[in-house]
Structure formats: C-alpha cells, structure tokens
C-alpha cells in the first residue's frame, strides 16, 4: 500500500477543537513526527507539537551587534578617522551619538527577527508534498489538517489511517511526495 514516495497520512478537520483533540490523541498513541496546519495560529498545538523558538535569541543578537556597530562607527569616524572641529564641540561628543545608536540597534534587531522566521521556516519553499492534496488549499482559509509523517518510526499506513478515522475528521488521505 504505502511505497517509497509516500510522505504521510493526512486528516482534514473543520473545527479547531477536533484538530487539537486529534493531535493530542495521536501523540498519546506515540506518534511524534506529526504536524498540524491551520489558517490561523492555535496556541494549544504548541504544547502538543513542541518546537524550539530561536527567534528571540537571534533578534537579541542582531540588536546587540547593531549597538556595537553604531557606537564604534560613530566613535571611529568622529574622533579618529575624521577629527574635525565642528562648532567648538569636542570630537567625542557622545550625547549626539545616542540617536543613531538607538536606530541602528532597532534596525538590526528587527531585520534579524524577520529573516529568522524565513530561515527557520525554510522559506522560500517552492515544493511541499501536501500541496498535491487538492483539499489542502483550504488550509489557508477555513480548514485544518493533521499530518503523520512516514518518517515516524511507528508509522504504518493502515494502522495510522485507522486511528485517524476515529478522530471524526472530514477525511483521511495518504499523501505521496511526487
């Protein structure tokens, strides 16, 4: 039944409650390689399908580097590289350096947060097996999907399908990756 090209078993739901329930059930049954797809964020799923969130850390590092870059640049240019008497002010007039320090910090922090999402999610993505499933088009507007991937050690096409049908889904399909 299942062959090499199989990606996994997908169940479609029309209600967030059922989806969460299903996910919880499958996890109880020992499935680990699973993923839920919903048209809007569903917090409860995050406990069931845990994922490490690197975004804040990356964002912080970005901001930190922004501050360092800004300050060192300002100091180097104003005091070392181009030491000019401007209006009788000292070369290292640090109060004037604060605004740019702040702006660059925010800039780099923000950019790193944004690109962190892209990187972690593996964007841009042009191909994904579930896209082969016509119903999956609704995943971005009204329906939710739960997918048990074939890579899961205890994945068995008949058994998994059987378990899933018990979770009153709209439908269950085995999706192949081609």
């Amino acid at each position, binding site marked *: 039944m299942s062959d090499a090209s199989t990606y996994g078993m997908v169940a479609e739901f029309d*209600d*967030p*409650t059922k989806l969460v*329930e299903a996910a919880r059930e499958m996890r109880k049954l020992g499935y680990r390689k699973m*993923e*839920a*797809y*919903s*048209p*809007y*964020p*569903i917090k*409860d*799923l*995050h406990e069931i*399908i845990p*994922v490490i*969130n690197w*975004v*804040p850390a990356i*964002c912080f590092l970005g*901001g930190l580097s922004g501050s360092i870059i800004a300050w060192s*640049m*300002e100091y180097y*240019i*104003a005091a070392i590289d*181009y030491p000019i008497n*401007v*209006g009788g*002010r000292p070369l290292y007039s640090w109060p*004037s*350096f604060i*605004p*740019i320090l*702040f*702006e*660059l910090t*925010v*800039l780099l*922090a*923000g*950019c790193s*947060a*944004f690109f962190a*999402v*892209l990187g*972690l*999610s593996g*964007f*841009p*993505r*042009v191909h*994904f097996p*579930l896209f082969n499933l016509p119903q999956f*088009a*609704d*995943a*971005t*507007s*009204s329906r939710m999907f739960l997918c048990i991937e074939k890579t899961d050690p205890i994945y068995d096409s008949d058994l998994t399908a059987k378990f899933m049908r018990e979770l009153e889904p709209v439908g269950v399909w085995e999706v192949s990756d081609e």
Partner: protein
Amino acid sequence: MMAPVEERQRHAARELDPNNPLPVVAPSTTFETVSEQISSIVLTRKTPLFWWCCFGFGIFLLIWFAIAVTYLLGKGVGIWGIEIPNGWGFAITNFVWWIGIGHAGTLISAILLLLNQSWRNSINRFAEAMTIFAVMCAGLFPLLHLGRSWIFYWVFPYPNTMTVQPNFRSPLVWDVFAVSTYFTISVLFWYLGMIPDLAMFRDRAVERWKKAIYGIMCFGWRGASHEWKWHQSASLLLAGLATPLVLSVHTVVSFDFTIAILPGWHSTIFPPYFVAGAIYSGFAMVVVLAIPLRSVYGLHNLLTVRHLNNCGKLMLATGLVLAYTYCIEPFTAWYSGNEFEMAVVRNRAFGPQAWSFWGVILLNVIIPQGLWFYKVRVKPQPLFFMGCVVLVGMWLERYMIIVTSLGRDFLPSSWATFVATFWDNATLYGSVGLFITLFMLFVRFLPMVPVAEVRELLPFSKPGGGTEK
C-alpha cells in the same frame, strides 16, 4: 460575499446603541465568509468605479508631481518660495506632516498589539500600508529640498575617495537613520503579517499566474504550527521594537528644530508635542481612509463602528495633548523671560502670518472638540469631516512652526515673510497624488484586512470555543 441586507440593518441598529458593547467583528462572520470577502476583492470581484476614480485622481496628481520635480531638479530649489531667512518652507513642512501621518499605522499594529487591543486586528493592515506610503512621501522631501539633490548620499557614512565623513552631531543625519530604520521596520512588520494572507490568495486564486505570483510572495507558507509559532513571536518582537521606534522617529524629527538655537524652535517640549501631533494626524488619516473603504467594499462587519469610535477617542486624546502644548509654549516663553522667545509668541499670534497660527487653533483645537460627542465619533460623515480638518490643521501647524520662527529671528534687519510659489503647492499636492496612487494599488492587489488575525477574533476560533454552525 457580504452579510445579507437585513442582517446588516440589524447590525447597524445595534451599533448605534451606546448601551450595547460594540462587537469587533459582526456576528455571522465565519472563516469562510471572511476569507471569501477579502480574497474576492482582489481575486474575483470586479474593480469598483470608486477605485478607478481615486486611482485616476491619484495618477493625475502624480503626473503633476513628476513635472514639479523635474522642473525642480532642472532649475534649482529657487523655484520655491524659500529665501534667506526662510531657508525651509513647504518641503520640510510636508516632510514632517507625512512622517506624522505615518505614525498611526505602526502605533496601531505595534502598541495596540502589545496592549492586547484585539479590535486593532481588522484595521492594522491598511493602517500599516498607509504608514509605509506616508513615509515614502515623507522620505522624498528631504532629498528634494537639497540644493544639490543628486549627492544626497553624502549624508551616509561610507568610505569614499574624498576621505570625508558626515557629522553625527547634526539632527539631519539622525533623521536619515531614523526615517530609513522606521521605513525598513514598518515594511518588514507589514509584510510579515501579510504572508499568511498571501498564502490564502495563492490557494484561492484561480488563474495559474496569480497562484504563481502570490505563491512567490508568500514564500510557500503552509500554516504549520511551528511556522505560526515563529511568525507570532517575530510579530511580537517587531511590535516591541516598533513601539519605541515610532516614538523615537518623531522625536528625532523634532530634534531638527530643537537642536537649532532659533527662538520658537529651541524648546524641550517639542518631542512629546510632535509625537502627539503625529498620532493625531495619523488617526485622522486612518478614519479618512477607513470610512470610504468600508462602505465601498462592504467591510462593515470587519471595520465596525467600534473602530471608528476608538479612532475618534484617540484623536480627541492626542488633540487635547496638542492643545496643552499650545498653551504651555507661551507660558515657557514668558517664564523664561527671553525677549526673543516672547517676540516669537507675539509674532505667531499677531505677526504677518498670524492667520496660520489662528488656523491651527481653529482646526486642531476648537473644531475637534466635537469628538466629545458619541454620535460624531460613530457616524461616518462627521468623523470623516473631523479627519480632514485635523489633517489640514496638522499641516498648517508644521508650516506655522517653521516659517514664523525663521521669518523673524534675532536680527530685525533680516526679517522677511515667506511667500509660497506655484511650485511649492505643486509639490505638496503631487505628493498627495503619490500617496493615493500607492494606496489604491495596495487596495487592489493586496489583502487590506489581516484575515488570519480576524479569524482569531471569531468566537469559535479557540479550541473548545463551540463550532461554526
């Protein structure tokens, strides 16, 4: 697909009842309806005549802008009314005005997100778009107003054969960093929020090429739970960053004036004063845009009177802050005992350009007091009128601050009164054209309401929150 007529009437009746807690999203809105409603505007429905009119008008003004700018670059800034002492005129006024308008979007999307104001969800998308286009318009003016615009990049620090560097003590350099940072962050924030909706367009689009385009734009979003996780935490972080940023940007803009020693500019009250004014004009622009949009595209169920009401309240609040600063300025002048400061106050109220000062008082302080009335806040027409009044008033305020201080500073021999030329006006209205054009393109091709966030607002969106039917 919008709610049936009688449904809408009932809805409207409930809206106008003050004892009734106003809903953020009209009942009878489902995942499917909201998805269909928004995507159909872009994907299936026929472009309404209203859109073509606005777009055409915007293009018309935009052509004027092109002409004005071409002539400007060819001839020099002398085509404007600026002179010595009035080294700055319309250009900087427009810059500050547009930047100010650009504040509401980020405020709504960032600060209200942090404050958990769920009502923001349905309006933040086009508010942010407005922000971005306003900042685009704003960013043009500092470049155009240069005597030699073609070397504007000299204000950036970069290794160059001239071995010279910019002056980090100059507020103009701070401006460069502040505005460009603000623009970048706003764009990222805006786009990040749009990715799921673009994915929806991809999936709902019929024609292949549309699928392709929106597919590329959404980076292949699937709505997987971990994608949502990172997406949300990034949104939260960006909101956290944008909040101090939005406050800092107008503070830095106000530094352009406060760092100078000019009487009427050199004042510590400017940063809060400017930020308040910015939010004031920003929300004015939001209502001016929202009211036609909701009626033309039938978004009454998403842009409810609750939004109008809240925007009205915010305008009222910020307007009162502004009124306070108008009162405190003469006081500080008097209290400082500085003859120049007092002369500026006198000059603003009774000088050759007193009309601008009294115009500001009328448009920014007196008329908007109407917002105290509930009916004014929730009825589209009066609120729209208030928005326009405030927008004009805020432009006038910046104009007043700039020319009345420059025109009569320390040495009487150099006093002069600024007189605008035809080209001053052409550039101002031209930039409005640029804004309208960009905004109309956004309305036509991008999701103007963040559907994903609206879905979260639906009662049955929470697991265990009941079923759709």
